[in-house]
């Protein structure tokens, strides 16, 4: 589904991604962990096509297509979704109308019927159940005044509406209370299918107990230093990152 080869990228002239290789197949769940500032969010935003980042080398194939030949909105319509670490607030734009426009853009691209406001109303009421969101959030301005946890819930609602092939979830778990973590973790699991894939960026193994990854990667200093199975997450929690960094410096971590 996603094949990243020797990807390098910079922002404002600073090289942040220094050669990433990653292979994600349909049906797989991957987790990326790593110290603050190591480039995790950058990787997500580069894949999603954020205009501030410059891809300086490497290639990425998404379902066999050159990802970088697509504009950000085309990537989204092709099925790439990013749940943001810090979702932005947009005053005056109602959550429901934003969700409907996003849904209809994708439907249009896929040659499916667009939904009028009434049809969408029925559709969205099913979706909010999945993330246990209260109805009133649909009429509020997009993310405006939402608490940190509510914003994350809204991200997963958008994921549920768009049903992406590949979802990159950047720190979904930070800022969530225990119940919300379980609800949203379950929701993400329920959205996962054999023809879809997940890339979970997190600092904590807890969410990985609900959304169980097949592969865990350690990203540090713009490189993936170690990849292993889900047990790596717990090991990292116990031991921190230093040993991975040291092993890598010694030249043998991979």
């Amino acid at each position, binding site marked *: 589904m996603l094949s990243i080869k020797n990807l390098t990228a910079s922002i404002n002239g600073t090289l942040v991604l220094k050669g990433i290789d990653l292979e994600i197949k349909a049906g797989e769940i991957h987790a990326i962990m790593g110290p603050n500032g190591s480039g995790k969010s950058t990787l997500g935003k580069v894949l999603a096509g*954020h205009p*501030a980042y*410059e891809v300086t080398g490497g290639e990425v194939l998404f379902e066999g297509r050159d990802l970088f030949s697509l504009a*950000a*909105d085309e990537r989204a319509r092709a099925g790439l979704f990013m749940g943001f670490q810090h979702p932005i607030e947009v005053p005056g*734009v109602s959550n429901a109308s934003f969700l409907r*426009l996003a849904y209809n*853009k*994708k439907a249009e691209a896929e040659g499916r019927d667009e939904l009028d406001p009434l049809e969408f109303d029925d559709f969205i009421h099913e979706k909010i159940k999945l993330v246990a969101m209260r109805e009133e959030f649909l009429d509020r301005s997009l993310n405006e005044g939402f608490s940190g946890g509510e914003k994350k819930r809204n991200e997963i609602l958008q994921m549920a509406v768009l049903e992406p092939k590949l979802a990159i979830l950047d720190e979904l778990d930070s800022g969530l209370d225990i119940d919300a973590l379980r609800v949203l973790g379950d929701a993400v699991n329920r959205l996962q299918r054999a023809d879809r894939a997940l890339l979970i960026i997190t600092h904590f193994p807890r969410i990985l107990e609900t959304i169980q990854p097949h592969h865990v990667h350690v990203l540090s200093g713009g490189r993936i230093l170690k990849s292993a199975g889900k047990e790596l997450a717990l090991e990292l929690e116990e031991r921190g990152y230093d040993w991975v960094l040291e092993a890598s410096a010694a030249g043998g971590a991979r």
Partner: protein
Amino acid sequence: MSSTFNVVTSQEYKYGFVTDIEADSAAPGLSEDTIRFISAKKGEPDWLLEFRLKAYRHWLTMAEPDWAKVDYTRPDFQAIVYYSAPKQKTPKYASMDEVDPELKRTFEKLGVPISEQAALAGVAVDVVFDSVSVTTTYKEKLATVGIIFCSFSEAVREHPELIKRYLGSVVPSSDNFYAALNSAVFTDGSFVFIPKGVTCPMDLSTYFRINNKDSGQFERTLIVAEEGASVSYLEGCTAPQFDTNQLHAAVVELVALDRASIKYSTVQNWYAGDKNGLGGIYNFVTKRGLCKGVASRISWTQVETGSAITWKYPSCILLGDDSIGEFYSVALTNHKQQADTGTKMVHIGRNTKSTIISKGISAGDSSNSYRGLVKVQPKAEGARNFSQCDSMLIGQACSASTFPYIEVQNRSARVEHEATTSKIGEEQLFYFQQRGIPTEEAISMIINGFCKDVFRELPMEFAVEATKLLSLKLEGSVG
């Protein structure tokens, strides 16, 4: 990929065509003779000629205002044509069939419903082409409930007593430079009179069009709502695309008696000049409403998207106790456009209330200023004002300014002012794109969200138009 905004060309102005029509025009230039010529052309009574001459003589003593945050070459008042009318046999068309087909096509292209069928859509329309009103629809139907809706010239002929009573009663001919000029040379416009207790059964609408290259447009609108009457009035405007600037200096006066209500909505789309600032309309307009009676209400809603220069402050004089004044405005500037617009709310009566919601959107190299005065006079016990002035910037080269003036002379008054400035940022746009929404639609959605509080004051069709217009004006502004 770059993180900077770049401003590329905007959508072509689609109303920029010129109608090839024979015109009956005065020679350029302004003198007492010009004024006598206009007055004679219109067969006006002496008192009106006197009104004009008095205004002209006063105008000669006045200086063009320079306090607004706009920068332009002063118009050459001797180069302007003060009277231009499509040639026609009779002074006014008796029915739609007589209207010059070329003129009809013009208005069809503009989407103005003057054909009989379109008029059935339910809006009564008066159309002002250069200096004269060419048609008024639905007149008879409105007359059955006592409503007068006609061109200003016609009103002077048919209802001189009303014109004499109200003309200049809200905006005196000496009020300001452009109002004085208008009072001297105004050519046509609309007159609306809603008698006591009558609610106007449909929206009334005037459509203004400047066609002649050298002509100025100086129209005059007067709306009077008697006790308990109410009316909603819409004004639209366009002009062809010329390299030179044309002057539009209108005066609009509204009078609301006891418990009367007037809602005045404008969608202004005069030609704005090209992206380098060549050509475009100078829009210097004086609009003022007098809430004369108790519990009367005047509400201005404007969507200003065109003109090279906009200088416009629709205001309310809240004279009657418990009267209400409202001002809802969206002003959008792009490229080299400059707008200095806002309102004045003058609280004179007790328990008078005013609301100001202003949304300024600047893109390109444009400059967009809100200038507003809230004045509470000593006797305005319990007066209340709420003002909200928000600015949104698109790109790096534009500017937005807010100049709120507050003068309170009564201690019981409550005046609140809130202002914000925001930017359509890369992060917001990226968020939309990441959800599959293309940039143009993202901008349009963000802008409409920003303007929501104003758009919901507009009549339905106008709101839809306004939404489309803003998107069109901003097309390609962010890339």
